[in-house]
């Protein structure tokens, strides 16, 4: 018995408790407001008149933006649900050859930036690419003589995004399946339900909050995507924002489009809340003996293998292979000493941002759990809004208040002491990391909250009744149960930051490069082969944490 709590709980003095009562909400609301500032700055443009541009937009391109964004979300929802939930179920509940490998390998596509996979597949599958050229050479056909799916199209974009985003759903769904009380599943089986029926009627509804959390992350990422849709020529909200801002030179209208985009995000968040509210399931049993996995044989095993192998191959092996092939052709000129610096910059930023985001998510998550008042609830929701906003828009939202603060301090110092302090925060990594937190807090927050949701409040009460102080409840009950979620949160933000491009590009200090910046600069210059080593290094750098954390998540299940 590891628990050795004092028999009598110590009572906190009244004033201290009151302090605690106010401290949580104040802290949560302050942090949330701070993180919501960039989005608020952008939304603030709603009140700036944008002139007649809106009429033009509504008459010409806006319907396209809306319908394409919706269709893209629908496609990605289907793709990530089928891929993510299916593979999660198979690897957590069934036994078939390769299962142990798939368990972590299925996460690999996460390390692949969406725009890189889009460039790579285009290089392979486009009309002028090697595959179609081979078909033409073999058959003697020309343009228009045969049908070949257009990779650069809306379905193509949905496929590309699904391939790199399904791991979000996989990760959260798998964690949910693994933590499901086997008693429930056993009961279902003993009641005569077959494995399929058990899956659809018991496991799936139980895992729904986690699945929806993963799905909403994937969809927000879809809404914020710029690189893929821009390259594929699919006009969506994000491409529209850039076009309106840069092409039409109208930042106010662009910000208003961003605000409209946020309406989509609100809808997503409400959907997620609603789904969670509909089903407030908590594990009812701590008895989670090791899973007796369903043993698949023959055709079933082959089908399961194929089902898991497909997303792994398409989302990782094939594009990584192509990148490796390209890298070989340019390795001598691109792999210099500078590369180590790039990788180190990327890793350090990603690790730092991931840890900070986790800390903030815990703070907000607990604040929400302990004091679920309306203002706190609203603050926590608002803090996660940045995830669906394109990075460049966030960057501008960060830039404006930071520069204002810097310049105000400078002006005051000049007026008072005759010293110029210059720019203190703008153009430093503080601004970059802040932007990452704004953009990716939703990821860690969703994950932490979905983890917290699985801990029944009655467990807290039982712990307190047994004489545990709040901190002990945290350390002895919550932490062990949360470990998987915390690691997941770290991993997701880490990989996201590793791939992040637009905010890094615009906010970074002088002479500071990351792998994503390098890969993008070359790829956007249509030098695919030259960009391959940097892209491949992002993938490789993402691999190690993906593997370590994936193993830890598995172990955390086993350790319970």
């Amino acid at each position, binding site marked *: 018995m590891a628990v050795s709590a004092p028999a009598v709980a110590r009572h906190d003095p009244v004033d201290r408790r009151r302090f605690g009562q106010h401290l949580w909400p104040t802290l949560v609301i302050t942090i949330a407001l701070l993180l919501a500032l960039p989005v608020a700055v952008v939304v603030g443009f709603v009140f700036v008149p944008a002139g007649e541009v809106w009429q033009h937009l509504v008459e010409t391109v806006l319907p396209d933006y809306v319908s394409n964004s919706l269709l893209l979300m629908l496609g990605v929802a289907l793709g990530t649900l089928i891929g993510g939930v299916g593979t999660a179920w198979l690897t957590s509940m069934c036994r078939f050859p390769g299962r142990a490998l798939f368990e972590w390998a299925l996460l690999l596509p996460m390390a692949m930036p969406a725009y890189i996979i889009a460039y790579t597949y285009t290089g392979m599958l486009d009309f002028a690419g090697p595959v179609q050229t081979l078909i033409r050479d073999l058959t003697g056909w020309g343009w228009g003589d045969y049908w070949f799916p257009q990779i650069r199209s809306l379905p193509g974009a949905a496929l590309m995004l699904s391939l790199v985003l399904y791991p979000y759903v996989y990760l959260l769904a798998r964690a949910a399946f693994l933590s499901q009380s086997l008693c429930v599943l056993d009961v279902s089986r003993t009641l005569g339900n077959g494995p399929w029926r058990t899956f659809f009627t018991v496991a799936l509804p139980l895992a729904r909050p986690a699945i929806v959390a993963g799905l909403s992350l994937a969809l927000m990422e879809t809404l914020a995507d710029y690189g893929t849709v821009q390259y594929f*020529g699919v006009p969506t909200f994000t491409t529209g924002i850039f076009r309106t801002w840069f*092409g039409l030179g109208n930042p106010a209208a662009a910000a208003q489009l961003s605000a409209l985009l946020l309406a989509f995000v609100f809808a997503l968040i409400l959907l997620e809340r609603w789904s969670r509210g509909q089903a407030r399931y908590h594990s009812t049993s701590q008895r989670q003996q090791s899973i007796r996995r369903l043993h698949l044989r023959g055709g079933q095993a082959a089908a399961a293998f194929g089902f898991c192998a497909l997303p792994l191959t398409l989302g990782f092996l094939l594009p990584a292979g192509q990148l490796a092939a390209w890298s070989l052709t340019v390795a001598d000129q691109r792999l210099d000493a500078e590369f180590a610096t790039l990788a180190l910059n990327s890793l350090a930023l990603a690790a730092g941002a991931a840890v900070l985001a986790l800390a903030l998510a815990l703070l907000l998550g607990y604040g929400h759990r302990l004091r679920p008042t309306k203002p706190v609830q609203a603050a926590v929701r608002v803090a996660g809004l940045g995830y669906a906003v394109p990075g460049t828009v966030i960057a501008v939202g960060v830039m404006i208040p930071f520069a204002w603060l810097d*310049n105000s301090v400078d002006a005051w110092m000049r007026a008072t002491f005759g010293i110029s302090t210059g720019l203190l925060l703008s153009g430093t990594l503080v601004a970059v990391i802040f932007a990452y937190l704004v953009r990716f807090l939703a990821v860690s927050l969703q994950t932490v909250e979905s983890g917290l949701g699985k801990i029944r409040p009655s467990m807290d009460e039982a712990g307190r009744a047994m004489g545990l102080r709040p901190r002990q409840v945290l350390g002895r009950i919550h932490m062990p149960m949360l470990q998987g979620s915390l690691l997941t949160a770290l991993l997701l933000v880490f990989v996201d930051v590793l791939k992040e491009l637009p905010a890094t590009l615009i906010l970074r200090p002088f002479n500071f490069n990351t792998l994503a910046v390098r890969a993008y*600069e*070359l790829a*956007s210059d249509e030098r695919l082969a030259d960009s391959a080593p940097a892209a491949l290094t992002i993938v490789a750098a993402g691999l190690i944490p993906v593997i370590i954390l994936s193993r830890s998540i598995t172990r955390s299940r086993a350790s319970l």
Partner: protein
Amino acid sequence: MIPFRHHSLLAGLPLLGLVLALGTPSALAETEEVNLYSARKEALIKPLLERFTEETGIEVNLVTGKADALLQRLKNEGRNSPADVLLTVDAGNLHRAKAAGLTRAFESETVAEAVPETYRDPEGHWTGLSLRARPILYVKGEVDPSELSTYEALADPKWKGRICIRSSSNVYNQSLVASLIAADGTETTEEWAEGIVANMARPPKGGDRDQIKAAAAGQCDIAIANTYYLAGMLKSDDPGEKEPAEKVAIFWPNQPGSGDGRGTHVNVSGAAVTAASENPDAAVELIEFLVSPESQAWYAEVNGEYPVREGVEISPVLAEWGEFKADDLDLVKLGELNAAAVKLMDRAGWK
């Protein structure tokens, strides 16, 4: 039973980012420095900057990014901006920077001598550094160059299903259409854009290289692309790049004798000294270096762009394409008409 487990992994992850974040980048340096915001990508400017440092001892600090984003940064940083020089790859953004009061006039005889007046700001706020031409490319054997004449003529129904051109979100297309508006007026240009949309072989997608590859593969007969992409493909070791490039040839549209003969559409990459610069002398020195004959030759050789300076030897690839008359439209117009061009393409259904 709940054993207490310690979170070595969580606690062990280094707060490297935080440590990094506290380091300020712009330390007060003893060596002279010039800070550059560049819309030209690092790989396409760094070697020149390194040579500049070697020659003058002035260190160059570089941030690259999209021109619009850099402008936004410059604007927000205000008078405390560390940037001394702004480098863009189109005239429109230089014009925008000037209009927003982010640049200052600078005087340099070297620049005045090197760069023709057409490619400089009349008030001396910026100068062009290289020329980027956007001609018509055709597939050898499929199109007889005698069939081609002007951009305007591409709207003729005889080109139905034969033209590849990228999205209207692309600034090169926006500038091209702006130049057409300047020459022909909005109405005529809108009809033209509708004609182009009707003649497209496929919905616009991909970059300039993609248009060239699609033409070479037989999807269309005409592609519109900037010349340096073609030059880059021709120089590539990758047969997937080189072979398609060899199947197409350049036609210089709107030359004297065809249409109004105003010349082929060009844009410039250029540089300006920022209003906030604390080191304008070094800034001007850098700009002067960028228009020196050696730097200009480097643009032509490595980037496949045309030098703004006359009499600079151009690379064999560019020389082979022959001389052409460039549209001498005031480049400021491209910036001014950009929004009109975007709206026009929206109305014409140019995706």
